[in-house]
């Protein structure tokens, strides 16, 4: 069994719980019918993300994700 303490958010990367922690992720695949997208973080981890709160996204877009929900489409300057 994994050590339950080991699954607690680590202090280097901050806390997923936090009211204000959010992560930029890249959209890989979109499931429009279910308003979900498969997204990839910088480190390569993938997860499904709710996209119901942002304008329609397409693969390659970057979104700001908090607690499994995309809160904002990121416009990349440059």
């Amino acid at each position, binding site marked *: 069994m994994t050590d339950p303490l080991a699954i607690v958010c680590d202090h280097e990367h901050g*806390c*997923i*719980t*936090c009211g*204000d*922690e959010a992560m930029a992720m890249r959209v890989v695949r979109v499931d429009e019918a279910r308003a979900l997208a498969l997204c990839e973080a*910088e480190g390569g981890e993938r*997860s499904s993300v709710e996209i119901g709160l942002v304008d329609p996204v397409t693969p390659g877009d970057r979104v700001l994700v908090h*607690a*499994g929900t995309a809160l904002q489409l990121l416009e990349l300057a440059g």
Partner: protein
Amino acid sequence: MKFVDEYRDAHLGQVLAGEILATVEPGRHYKVMEVCGGHTHSIYKYGIDDLLPANVELVHGPGCPVCVIPMGRVDDGIAIAHEPGVIFTCFGDMLRVPGSRGTLLEAKAAGADVRMVYSPLDALRIAKQNPDREVVFFAIGFETTAPSTALTLMRAKAEGIRNFTCFCNHVTIVPPLKALLESPDLRLDGFIGPGHVSTVVGARPFEFIPADYGKPIVISGFEPLDLLQSVYMILLQLREERCQVENQYKRVVPYDGNPQALRVLAEVFELRPHFEWRGLGFISHSGLKLNDGFADYDAELRFPVPGIRVADPKACQCGEVLKGVIRPWECKVFGTACTPERPIGTCMVSSEGACAAYYNFGRFAREREVV
């Protein structure tokens, strides 16, 4: 990654630090509060404090959602977790927050089925996979997290999932700020506004800070240069005797927030008459509960909840830390009886908590100060 690197440029940091130095009036002491735990974390991680002149003090506010959960609510969560057939899900940091009789982690060791999730959607998935069990999600967080809970509840309702409920502890950012501004023992010159809460609510709800209390607020990003620039913008407002809401984080935060997110919040939640905050006491209209349309998904209605108010431990000075009245290391038990491994107070649990952030990143700086 360009998006991030350009906000971590050490040379630009030095330039900004120079401008800050040129902006402050010598002999005047400035106290600036960063409202958000994410900012506290960045400030310590990157040593932003060390780049500021000695008379500019950063004070850590109540913006860590884990830190503000009162003990009684943790006890309530644990009571639900011990109900027969329940799978109790929560974010990682919540596992270690002490209630009056231990933590969720200890409840798990004692046999409760407590599981960590990364999102409410994960909790809903567990409910679908375990139709014969009752899955409860311990929802905490500000307006950044609440839309995610709201969407998940809407999904559960639309899909007719009956074995999923939410123990709702969502809070809103404006009422505690008002409470802080009203508190007589507080002297602040300005605020660094929360970046990601504002992606949802926008900058507009903070207009009361300059309008009613005459203090500047700058909504800030999380990278070192974001924070330095925000401090500079606040100091500049003070020097020019302006006070207004400014948005340093325009690349992410629209002035009016995210209207879709605000709409789902309104569809699922209503304000509680009052909600208790650790260290700050009861604050009216500061907490969210599920509205009547979602009553079937409310864990507080489905399970018996003790709802007993528990006073914070005597040794704990989290309230004063959350109000910025004392600095984390000034708490009598900081780093001795209270550490991230064995927290007494909640500020020591989450890495966004002022005490934990200081313990992990700031302790060496403090040692330097002492010698």
